[in-house]
């Protein structure tokens, strides 16, 4: 994986706490099982395919998210347009650092596995019956977005110009489909998705704990399940080093 993408994923994770899907348009579902490869989640199976019941439920409400890299991004509205002004707008985004990015998402919603403890126990059983590869990860939560704009610069100097069909720009929410944004020009190497619908831009995954059987052999006598976590969260460096 190239360094600019790592920078993008690292900054997104540090600030939003989730892995940024790469490529941004990749399809991914809660309950997918797979591995991390070159910063991407590569699906191998799903919990459903393995006969593991997985209850997925939305968590919390929806929200719009706008996040721009801390350095190296400059957004300007074209000379013949302004916020709130009736005109055909042009939005110019300049990047002065590889890995600089713009991430705007509309109606971002979290959905996740609800029965995590039961899923964890089922995965342990699947592992014990050699139906589960212990290197596999499970997507346990992801954000869906009604629309999202993700622009990542892979060059230290790059730029993109977007044209809006809308007569006015009510706000600088570049994921807003009402703006009718389209790419006018691109300079340098840039990965971009403009107001794309039904994206899954953020996710988090868990894996079977390692070492699973290296625990103290004598467990406390409690008369109840200890509810010890059977899963652990995948760390950012696993994604970056994949």
């Amino acid at each position, binding site marked *: 994986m190239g360094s600019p993408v790592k920078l993008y994923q690292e900054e997104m994770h540090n*600030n939003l*706490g989730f892995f940024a899907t790469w490529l941004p348009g990749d399809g991914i579902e809660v309950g997918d099982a797979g591995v991390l490869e070159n910063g991407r989640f590569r699906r191998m199976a799903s919990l459903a395919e393995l006969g593991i019941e997985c209850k997925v439920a939305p968590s919390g409400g929806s929200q719009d998210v706008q996040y721009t890299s801390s350095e190296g991004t400059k957004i300007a509205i074209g000379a013949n347009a302004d916020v709130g002004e009736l005109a055909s707008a042009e939005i110019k985004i300049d990047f002065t650092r590889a890995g600089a990015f713009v991430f705007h998402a509309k109606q971002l919603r979290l959905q996740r596995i609800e029965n995590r403890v039961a899923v964890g126990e089922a995965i342990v059983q699947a592992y014990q019956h050699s139906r589960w590869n212990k290197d596999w990860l499970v997507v346990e*939560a992801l954000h869906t977005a009604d629309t999202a704009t993700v622009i990542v610069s892979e060059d230290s100097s790059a730029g993109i110009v977007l044209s809006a069909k809308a007569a006015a720009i009510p706000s600088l929410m570049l994921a807003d489909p009402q703006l009718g944004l389209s790419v006018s020009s691109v300079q340098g190497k840039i990965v971009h998705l403009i107001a794309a619908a039904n994206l899954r831009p953020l996710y988090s995954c*868990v894996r079977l704990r390692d070492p699973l059987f290296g*625990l103290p052999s004598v467990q406390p006598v409690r008369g109840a399940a200890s509810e010890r976590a059977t899963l652990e969260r995948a*760390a950012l460096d696993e994604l970056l080093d994949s």
Partner: protein
Amino acid sequence: MQVYFSHSYRDGTINKYFFDYFLEQEIPFLADQKSEVWCVAKLERSLIDTTGFISIIPKRVTAEDPQGYSPYIGRELDLARRARIPRLLFVDAQVLARHRLDFPQDAVPFLSDGLEQGAEQHSRAVRSFRKNIEAAFTMRRDFKQRNAIVVAAEGAPLRKAADDIEEILRRAGFDVARPSGKRSEGRGLDDIRLLETLWRAELCVFILGKRLSEAHVALAMAHANCIPSVRLQFDPQSTDCHPELSGVIRWGLHDDMLVAFNEQLMSYQAGLVSLDDPSKISQMQYKQRSENLWKLEDGPGLADHVHPDHNFVRDEVSRVREEMDTALGRISDRAKTLDLCGLFYDGISRFRCGYEIEQQTDEPGMQSIRTPTQFQTHRTATCLDMACLFASLLEAAGQDPIIAVFDRNQSAHALVGYRLRGEPVLKRATIGDLRNLIALGDAVLFEATGAVESENPVGAETSRERYDKLIRWADAVEAGKRMVMQPDVQLRHFVDIREQREASARR
């Protein structure tokens, strides 16, 4: 000319307000360094050696008395009244209204939430006090330095105690007189030679039995003459050798008594500190033990400072168990775990202990962390003390506590909370992982210092949330979340206590 300054170190804004008037009038201060040893003899000596006494008495809310005040400040005031030195008292108006007879008539009220409203009266009182002490006759006590007297009642254990006290005093450089308990031969208060011996002494030690004796008469003489005295009351039933508010130390075991006396003597000899800034004495001075020390870079080492086995922790856990009427270790759903932690939080808040910044350690790169028992004794805590205390409570309740230490604005701050039981663990935590955990609701981190009094915000809470020096539980959780989400914070350490314990067990 020096004036004894009696105040509550927690009320920085109030102290600062009055201190500006004192500075304006160039009043030089002595104050007792905050310490875990309550030594009345030291206060008695200080009060009769100073020219005057100033006390600021703020409100100290307790469950029993919403207009209460510190009993220790009250005791200092009583000692000053007994010493008959010029005094100036500023008392919270609500406290004064409720406890009018506890204070002399010359007490000056102030409004804690409207200090400036009394500015003119306060300024005038300080000016008048300065003039008073400039002209006041100061009665100097005529005594011999390093002269002590040990007066013991009759009885074998008391004699043995007197012998050992005498030896301790000698080793500390004192010349010790030991009048016989029977020498006054019934003369009681008319025993003028005994009185003169007491006058000559810098320090008196009274070893008292259960029955009234000549030693009690001698104590009364010393008391009336404000001669610094340590009172050791033999009481076979006593299991606690800590001095009472009055200064009396009740002892049942000889060795415990000697330890307590030694602490009194060390505190007495340490004396007072000159004061040009009230914040300088606001830090609790306590004897750090090696088990208090934590290496700043050793995140996993924080687990060693989590003590679920301390009695204070067990008592609090029992209280919450009774309140929830369920086995705490079986609780795993979100709402109930939040309630459980909230009950611990509210329980600690009721002690109304104070927040303070950490004490300097002798070893670079180390920080001292109080045990739960020390928190109970010292009644003050740093953010890390609080984090380890709550982690102790949560672990004792069978939950999975987590501690996070952050760097921000060139300072560090600790939060504590829990990972919900059964939720995935973090293998290597970054700030992003922590944000993920909090965003998903799989863990809660809260502002633990909200359970101790601080005038100003300590973490990410707003001034409004820190109402009446404390933070409500719901706001403490919000403040914790806010801190984790702040863009400028860096995660220095993240410790999952249960994970750490299991890792240690594997090694």
